[in-house]
Structure formats: C-alpha cells, structure tokens
C-alpha cells in the first residue's frame, strides 16, 4: 500500500529548496502517521492485539521523536534511482512503473525531464513522500520521489542537479528508458555517477543493434553493471529451455549444437527496411553462445532476404546463427520461436521454444520424432517486475555480463574501441 502523505505538492526551484522541502515533508509525514496510529489505537481498543500493535507503533514514533515532537520516518536504505525521462510523457509512464513496484522501489527516485532547451535556464521540482506498507501489520517504510524539470541550458548539466540530491552512500541506478546517448557529452557526465545502468534494448529505435554494440562497449569500458530489460524478459525462456536439457540423455546435445535459429515478429514480410528491433532475438543467441562456450567466427550480417546470419564455433565445429523475420501479431521485435539443432552420434535433436502471455512451450524432436512436449506456466514479466528485478539485483550477474559481452562480439565489438555494426 502506498500512501501519499504530503498535502499540496511543494514546488522548489533550487537544490537547497528541494532539500528543505524534503525535510519538511518527512516531519509532516510523521505527524500524520502518529495521529493515525493514535486514532487506530482508540478505534480498536477492544481488540487487545491490534491495540497493542497500534500502541507499539505510537510508542516507537514517540521514541524517535526529536525535541520538537517531529518524527523522522524510517527510510529503507536500498538505492537511488535516477530516471532520465527526457519528456513529460515518459516521466509519467516511469513514475507509474515506479509506483507499481510498491515497496520494492528505491529509497529515492529522481525523475528528470527537460523542456525548452533554447529558453531561460532554471529548474522546477516537486516532491512526493511515500509511506509504504506491503501488507497489514507489517512495518512501514518511507521513500521519496523527486520530479525535476530542467529548463534551458540547465538541461545540459543534469549531473549538477543529480549529485546533491542523491541519498548519501547508497548505490545509484541510472534508468534510461529511451535511447541512451552513449557517445555524447551527456553520457560522459552521467554514466560515471551510476553503479548500474537500466535500459530496455527492445525499446530502442531502429534495429537497436548499433546501440546494443555501444552498450556492450560502454559496459566493458566503464565496468558498469547493466540491467537490460530485453535480457531480463527472457528469463522465462531460459528456465524452460534449461529444464528440458536437465534430462540427462539430452544434455550431451548441448555440446553438439549446429544451428540456432530465432524467428522474430515483423510487421512487413522479410522486414525489408531492416528497422525492426532485433535486440531480443540477438540476446537469445548471445545467451546460448555464452553458456555453451561458443566463439564468434563471423559477426552478424544482414542478407538481402532480411535474414541476419552469423557463424559461431563450438568445440571444433561451426554453429550457424539465423535471425529470421516473420509476420506475426506479436509486437515488432518479439521473439516468436527459438530453435536449436544439434547433431550427436547420428542423432539430430531439434529443440523449439515458443512463448505466450502466460506460458512457455518447449518441443524436442529426436530424429524427427517428438520426444518431449512441455508447457511451463510462466507469465510475461510486466514493466514493474522488470524494474523491481533491476533494482533488486545486488551485484553484476555473470550470465548477463557474458551474454552482453557475447552480443557485442556478435556485432563485431571486440573491444571498447571498436564500433559495432549498424542495422
């Protein structure tokens, strides 16, 4: 449950004003809560357990009151989340996602938008303080949302706004919901502030591969923890696929893969313009390649047919990679199907994975004969789930690191200095 404890939203026009408003907010929030606890205690006095709980809450709030009788609310020490929203619509959408993560969200979220770059400089801020309880009777915790709008040239100096507003000594997650401008002065200033970068590669413009290559290079260059929703979304595919190869007699086939084919949704047959985002399909290949010890022989290239191909090597044999567009009702760039073909001691195994909103389905054909057919109940992750996972992950996840690094190699990024291929 999230309860907005502030009255009319204060508007600040400088960093000291924002800081002042934050202090006031928490003091007022405490008074509201103490009064609520008192009322609650009286209301349920006949029910001793509930009354005791309410009294304990009241006592706790009094115990931590300062001389002025104000209560400094407890805040969960998790992290700072900085959202580079860009425009107001994106800011609203991000704020909704943050709110939907309920108690999972960060201690302090800064949502930054920019307006009128040619106009006079300045900033506006509004602040929300949230008291969060996950379920009845559980402890409350506090969190803050600070919405900052930068005007004019101030928008070019966002780092100077962000740094003073970060909660001291907490990790900083930088969430860039749209195309991150990796090779710009702005990124140069903002990326060093972040411990982790949250992006959604599947939402990038065009095919997304150029940006994915830049992301791989930046992650390597800056030793940055990257949380890409496009990769997080695939966790249910990975679980399903891994479960099938848990069967001991199928497992050796993981060392004998000959072809990986990924079919993705495109509005037009053959994706003639090549501008359908293929970050998700590529991540499937990158994950498999990184898990199965494959190296890149020739990077991804686009054929006239719209298909993209690459060549990998695994234990002395080559593995053909095919990313193939297919007309589908799914949103553009969604993975329609992943097919893995392996050959071992004369047996050909074809594993096919497909997913719907609620489940992931796996079929294994052994020399053309159906060997396994399974459906895993695994709903598609929502934005709030993705953000929740992205902020909760503590350290670098080796699987993501390897997958991103392999994706970079599939795009021809051998080091941070190399440019990736485009679409």
């Amino acid at each position, binding site marked *: 449950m999230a309860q907005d404890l502030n009255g009319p939203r204060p508007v600040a026009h400088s960093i000291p004003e924002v800081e002042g408003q934050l202090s006031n907010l928490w003091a007022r929030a405490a008074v509201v809560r103490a009064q609520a606890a008192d009322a609650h205690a009286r209301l349920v006095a*006949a029910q*001793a*357990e509930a009354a*005791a709980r309410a009294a304990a809450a009241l006592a706790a709030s009094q115990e931590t009151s*300062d001389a002025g009788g104000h209560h400094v609310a*407890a805040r*969960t*020490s*998790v*992290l700072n989340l900085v959202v580079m929203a860009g425009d107001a619509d994106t800011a609203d959408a991000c704020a909704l996602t943050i709110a939907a993560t*309920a*108690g*999972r969200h960060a201690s302090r979220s800064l949502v930054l938008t920019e307006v009128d770059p040619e106009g006079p400089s300045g900033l506006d801020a509004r602040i929300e303080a949230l008291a969060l309880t*996950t379920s009845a009777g559980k*402890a*409350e*915790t506090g969190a803050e949302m600070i919405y900052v709008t930068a005007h004019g040239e101030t928008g070019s100096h966002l780092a100077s706004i962000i740094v003073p507003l970060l909660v001291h*000594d*907490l*990790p900083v997650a930088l969430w860039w919901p749209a195309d991150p401008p990796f090779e710009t002065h702005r990124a140069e200033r903002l990326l*060093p*502030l972040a*411990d982790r970068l949250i992006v959604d590669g599947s939402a990038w413009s065009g095919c997304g591969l150029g940006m994915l290559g830049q992301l791989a290079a930046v*992650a*390597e260059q*800056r*030793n*940055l923890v990257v949380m890409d929703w496009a990769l997080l979304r695939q966790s249910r595919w*990975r*679980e*399903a*696929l*891994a*479960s099938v*190869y*848990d069967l001991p007699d199928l*497992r*050796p086939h*993981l*060392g004998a893969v000959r072809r990986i084919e990924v079919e993705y949704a495109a509005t037009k047959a053959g994706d003639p313009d090549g501008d359908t985002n293929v970050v998700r399909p590529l991540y499937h290949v990158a994950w498999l390649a*990184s*898990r*199965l*010890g494959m*190296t890149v022989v020739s990077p991804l290239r686009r054929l006239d047919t719209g298909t993209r191909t690459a060549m990998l090597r695994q*234990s002395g044999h080559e593995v053909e990679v095919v990313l193939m567009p297919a007309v589908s009702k799914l949103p553009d760039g969604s993975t329609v199907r992943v097919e893995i073909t392996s050959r071992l001691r004369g047996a050909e195994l074809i594993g096919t994975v497909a997913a719907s909103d*609620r*489940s992931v389905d796996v079929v294994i054909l052994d020399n053309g004969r159906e060997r396994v057919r399974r459906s*895993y*109940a*695994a709903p598609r992750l929502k934005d709030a789930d993705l953000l929740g996972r992205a902020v*909760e992950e*503590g*350290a*670098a996840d*080796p*699987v993501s*690191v*390897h997958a991103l690094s*392999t994706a970079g190699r599939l795009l021809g990024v051998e080091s941070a200095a190399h440019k990736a291929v485009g679409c």
Partner: protein
Amino acid sequence: MDASTDRRPKGPGRPATAPPVARTTLQLRQAATSARRHSRPDPDKNPLREGLRLEQVPDPCAFVLFGATGDLAHRKVIPAIYQLWRTNLLPAEFSLVAVARRPYTNESFAAEIRASLEKYSRVQPIDEAAWAELAKRIVYHQLDFADDAAFDSLGTRLDELDKECGTAGNRLFYLATQPSQVTEIVRQMGRVGLDHEMRGGGWRRLVVEKPFGRDFESARLLNHEVNKVFRESQVYRIDHYLGKETVRNLLVFRFGNGIFEPVWNRSYVDHVQITVGESIGVEGRGAFYEETGASRDILQNHLLQLMTLVAMEPPSSFQADALRDQKLAVLRAICTPTPDEIKHEIVRGQYGPGWVEGEPVPGYRQEPEVDPESETETFVAGRFTIDDWRWSGVPFYLRAGKRLPKRATEIAIQFKEVPLRLFRDSAGDPAPNVLAMRIQPDEGIMLRFAAKVPGLGLDVRAVNMDFAYDTSFVVDSPDAYETLILDALLGDASLFTRADEVEAAWSVVTPIINAWAEQPAPHFPDYAAGSWGPETADQLIERDGRRWRRI
C-alpha cells in the same frame, strides 16, 4: 541498516582503489573470455542452468507421502509441493504418491487436496493451470502400515509409475505420520526393498519428521532401526526451524560478513539469550503435549539447533557434512548439567489461567486431553555453557514457553560493557551493545549502540540500528517446508539433522528430564498465561547480575 553492499567507487572524486566486492563486471568478463577459450561442456552439468533461480533442479522422482490424509500433510507438506510445482521448481517427470489408511480414489483425494490448498496455500487464488497439471500427477495408495501385501503393491505401483511418468526410480519417502509409526513403516520399506538404490540412478531418500525419539536411548534405538534399512546419507530428519529464512540468514550473517567474526567470542560477548516464545497454548494437542513438554518439544531441537548455529566454528565449506560436523562439535561441547546444576540452572514451569492478547485463557491443566494434575512443563529456561576456546565462560540463556505474552523467537548477543566509563556525568549509563536477530515475527537484525543525545550536555542514550526483512526485501519468503522439501529433492542435507546430532542433543536434555522425574512434584502451575514464565526463570538469570531481554 543499509542493505546494499555493492557500491563500488568509480569516476572522479572517488577513491582510486575499489573495496573488494564479490566479483566485478571486469572480472566476470575476464572469466568469460577465459571460459570461451577453454570451455568444454561438463556432461554432468547443465550449462544453461547457470544464473537461473536454481542451478540444479530435482531429478525426475516420485514423492511418496505417508500420512497423506493427516494434518501436517494438508497444512504444510502439500501446500509446499504445490508452491514448488506452481513456480516450476519441480521436474515435469514428477508424481505425488499419497499413502494413507483411509479409502480414496486418485480423484477424490485430489479433490480433498484442492480444498486444503484453498485453506492453507500461502499464495491465493489457486493457479488453475498449475493445479490441473499437478492433479494429474497425484496417485492415492491405500495402505495399512501393518499390511505386508499393501506394501508389496506399493512397490509394484512405484515401479509402474517409473514407466508411466518417467520418474526414473528416484523416490523420496516423506513420513508425515505419528512418530510411533516410523519404525514399522521403515521396517516394511526395508522388507519390500524400497530403500534399495539402483546403479546408474534411482536414488531413495527418507524424510522423517521430529520428534526423533523422546530421550537419548529411544533416539538411539530409532536411529538404529532406521539405519538398519536406510544408510545415514539417505535419511533427512526435518526440523522446520532450520528452513526458516531468518535461520538460514544467520549463517550468511555470521559467515558472509567479516566484521562480526572478530568479536564473536568470549573476549567480547558477555552472554547470549535465545528465546522461543509462543502465545498459543496446546491448541487441541493436549495428549501429544502431555507426552512431550517444552523440553522435548522445543529445547532438544529448536533451541539447541539455534544455539549451535550461533556458537559453531566456520565450516570449511557449505557441504552438508562440513556444516553438520561443526554443529555437532558444539553440541558435544555443551556441558551436560549435573543434578545439582539442573536444580539451580534449569527451570521448568507450567502456565495457569491468565490473559493473552486481551482474551482470558485457561490454564494448561484445564486444556482438553490434559491431566488435571499434569506435571508436564510448558516452559523451560536454562543456563548452558560451552566448553571450547571460543565460548568458555560465556553463558547461553535459553528459554521457551507456551502462553507467553507474545509469539517471538529471538537470538540476542549481548556484548561486554566498555572497559572504562568515560561519560560518568551522563544522565544514564550507556547500555551494553546488543545484536539481536529476530527469527519471527518481524524478521530482522537489530544492533544497539550508544549515541550522544543532541544538546549542550553529554548525555548518552542507547539507539537501535534496525534491519527489517520486510522493508529491505519486499518479496515473499518461501515457507520453511518449501525450502526443506526442495533441498531433500536435490539431495542437499545441510539443513537436516544427522543421527549423531540428534543423539548429542538428547545427551544434553535427557539428564534434565531424568532429574525432573526423580524430583518431588513441582508446584504447578507457577506462571500465569500471558506472563514471561515463572519467577524462578527471572531468578535464574538475575543471580548472574543479568536480566532477560524485554522482547
């Protein structure tokens, strides 16, 4: 408390050297490069599993649940299986073979389970698709534990299921039955050969619920009977306390943090208090409780297990036996109390009528199925010591009871006072530092330390730094049974109790029980329901100049 540990300095203005973190992305990338150069898939491992929720999943298997119609099965075991199934943590080649005396068909038993899940599943509503798949895998087998033929047919049925469901000869036998039936069931399983593991796969495991005997001799006998059929490595004795998230966190807290180990010993610790308090009474289990009492029900297992986790040396690895060897070393180092020490340092009590949570409640002797003259203890407290280099001279005060003012399980490490009181003019003495680990409810960890009260004077007050699971990890913790059942299916016995551990715990508790049996009848009841136990419990600790923590 700051829950984050992964902040790494980088960029201008930050220290040039990063603190040691688990693995940086750079290290991970280097590892990836190296792996690409040298990797050859290990045929025994599934490389696609790395980084997923489980890096290993249970093998295909049949889960054979004895006592499937009982309370424990319906409240705990089956909801845990459903939850594991629902979250795709069980293999598709899985069957739940419910074994009990009452007549059911597969369908009628599945319907009964469904009704129980509506009541007891921690996640509601029931996921229809997941349930439909699980229901297909439920097989009911009627069986009287004394009936040889029924056990023969159980063996045959399981063999058939291996073929029908692909369970590959792997079987986990879970005994959710009366303790008195364990020996007979195990004997029958041995007679039919259900314990026999097969070459090239086909493991057999036995999960036994506590109590593991009622004293040292009976525990040894039970272990002997079980081990006549199953090897010790096949036996998983379940104490659900060890599966609780906060108990498991105790290991992470102790061995995943470097700052506590240096002060975790007799040089810095004044004493340790462990409390397992329940506000409920015997809840309709009067007959059972008459036979057990607080010492058998809580002290011998939960309290001593918590004590071992606090006091154990770091294991060399997190392999089951490495962990259990260290716990066993603690149990063996606990000084067995002499009759005289039992008289002075172990306290028992029984609750009389009183008020709990604003409701009048009857005394123990007024509970159903309880002897009106019962001498069974519903409260036990004791002062224990451990004879080893780390803990010599540090008292461990343990207490557990029913009908206490609240439900609360807590471990508190009280540190020694400062050697010199510098702030003599302060209005109050700074209280010694306390590290309290709340096992339930409000799971978390609190560290108390002294701070200056703001103002011109130099007043010192104790303040608490509090870490609460609720507010730092807003995700549902799995139920202890989910954790433990999954571990048993994976063959990880770390959180299960080994035979020698059980016997070592009984060797601490049995002299107490025996001494009490020989002493004159106690003046029961000696504490009112809703109080923190008898006065003698307070006297026990106050004699040492200490007092129980107000929880």
